[in-house]
């Protein structure tokens, strides 16, 4: 089986600081993958390089059999990579429904040529809001939402682009126990619909219950990759997290 996402020898520098140092990563279609690492280890930089927010200096990113290097972020979104942001970044001046309308108009609509009428769009917005449990608030503004609702909006907006791969960048940070379960259940449901998911998270309970495979990033290097139970027992991983 060919990998959906194939990251090869990816390097990214900020001035003299090496944020990513020859990272290789493969994600199979339909897989639930966890990505962990201490603060500043390069997780978000990796996401940014995969999504096109940042351009990598060397190495390459292949997605769905296509080379992604040099493509702008919106072009990668069109090809099926979606992300949620670590800190939610809703469009503040728009209602929740309009927030979802953007990726529908610019990505799903452009790609499939479906959703022709305004009615189709409205129905799809409603369906997405329903999926994340925000159906009753479609006309509210993002500022009226709670933290967990904001995360759900973020995920719904990523899903509106009908991606093949969803990268959830710390979509649970700062949430309560039950709220985490909420988001986890949502992610699992998405995965069951055939969407490959990379979960970046500090909350180990969530990562361990979600991931089929776990990769660990430390100081811009991938130090472990494998079954979650084995990876967390890896002496190097333990050392990176707890020190010696």
């Amino acid at each position, binding site marked *: 089986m060919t990998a959906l996402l194939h990251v090869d020898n990816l390097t990214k520098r900020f001035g003299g600081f090496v944020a990513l140092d020859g990272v290789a990563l493969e994600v199979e279609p339909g897989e639930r993958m966890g990505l962990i690492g201490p603060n500043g280890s390069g997780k978000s930089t990796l996401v940014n390089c995969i*999504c*096109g*927010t940042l351009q990598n200096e060397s190495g390459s990113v292949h997605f769905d059999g296509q080379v992604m290097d040099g493509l*702008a*972020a*919106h*072009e990668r*979104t*069109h090809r099926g990579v*979606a*992300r949620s*942001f670590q800190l939610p*970044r*809703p*469009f*503040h*001046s*728009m209602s929740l429904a*309009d927030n979802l*309308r*953007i*990726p529908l*108009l*610019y*990505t799903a609509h*452009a790609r499939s040529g479906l959703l022709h009428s305004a009615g189709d769009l409205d129905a799809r917005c409603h369906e997405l809001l329903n999926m994340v449990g925000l159906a009753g608030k479609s006309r509210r503004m993002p500022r009226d939402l709670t933290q967990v609702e904001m995360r759900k909006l973020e995920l719904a*907006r*990523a899903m*509106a*682009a009908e991606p093949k791969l969803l990268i959830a960048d710390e979509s649970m940070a700062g949430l309560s126990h039950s709220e985490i379960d909420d988001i986890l259940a949502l992610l699992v449901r998405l995965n069951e619909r055939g969407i490959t998911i990379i979960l970046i998270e500090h909350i180990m309970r969530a990562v361990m219950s979600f991931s089929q495979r776990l990769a660990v990033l430390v100081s811009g290097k991938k130090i472990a990759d494998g079954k979650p139970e084995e990876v967390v027992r890896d002496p190097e991983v333990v050392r990176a997290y707890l020190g010696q």
Partner: protein
Amino acid sequence: MNTTKFILAMIAAGAAVLAVAHSLNVDYFFFAAYTILQFIVLATAWNILGGYCGYVNFGSAAFFALGAYSSVALIKFDGAIDSWFPEGVASFLHHVFPLPIPVLIVIGAVVSGVVGLGMGYLTLRLRGAFFAIATLAMAVVLQTLIVNWDFVGGSRGAYIIRPDTLEVGRFQVSYIEYLFTLMLILTIIALVTARTIERSQLGFGFATIRDDELAAEACGVPTLRLKLIATTLSGAFMGMAGAPFPYYIGYLQPASAFGLEYAVNSIAMPMIGGTTSWIGPLIGAVVLGSAQQYATVTISSAVNLLIVGLMLVAFVIIAPKGLLGLVQDRLQARRSS
């Protein structure tokens, strides 16, 4: 209201204004109304980039002046044909020149639009205050170029002799009424365009740029392309507003074409009216433009900028989202109470 109905409504409103103006038949009314209409176009043009996309352009005067000076250049070209070209070519060119004002308007739009596109490319990584400063700098550079371009009069300025009347078939129309009518048509085109953008996919895209460009890209919005569309459109409409200006003013010099009042008014009018909708710049331009015309007649034209300044300060305190925002907030408060 759908777009066709809106266009018909605008045309009806324009025809009504024209009918009233024509029956009054006071030259001063045409002069004053022309200025207000010109500011509606400028404010609407500014709002396409400033209000919808959130990019504050301080160089509106430059786009306006480019439109005006492209007209001046073509008028001067007409005068220089005989000395520049051999007889055969000259007699052919005399068939084409002098160009009618509607053609000058199109050319002014193209020139300013191209400069707008260039400005978009050069400043695409700048945001907020940095973008504003860059546009201001561009205005200064263009003004320096015009001041040093002798063909269009340089710093001395250029005289444009306006004919008294225009013959349309058997009818004779006073030239100022002709200019007023042209500007009225331009205003309708600008407002229809702004409103159409607002309700289209493009308008949604512009709003995402204003809110959060990173998130917009992640949603698949080609932010760079949209920004360039906005700078080009905005510049083109400012150029359109400027193209008939030499005929209106009669004597054009760089200091007046690049005047501070154009840059300041194009910002202040949408701000006072409200930047989120096409109707905001319209309201702002009518309110502020009328106040300025009134002050010009009763006190002096020198107080115009003072009026703008005071009104801006007042609105920043009382209604930061403009008159439109004030009304919307009131309506919302009433609905929720």
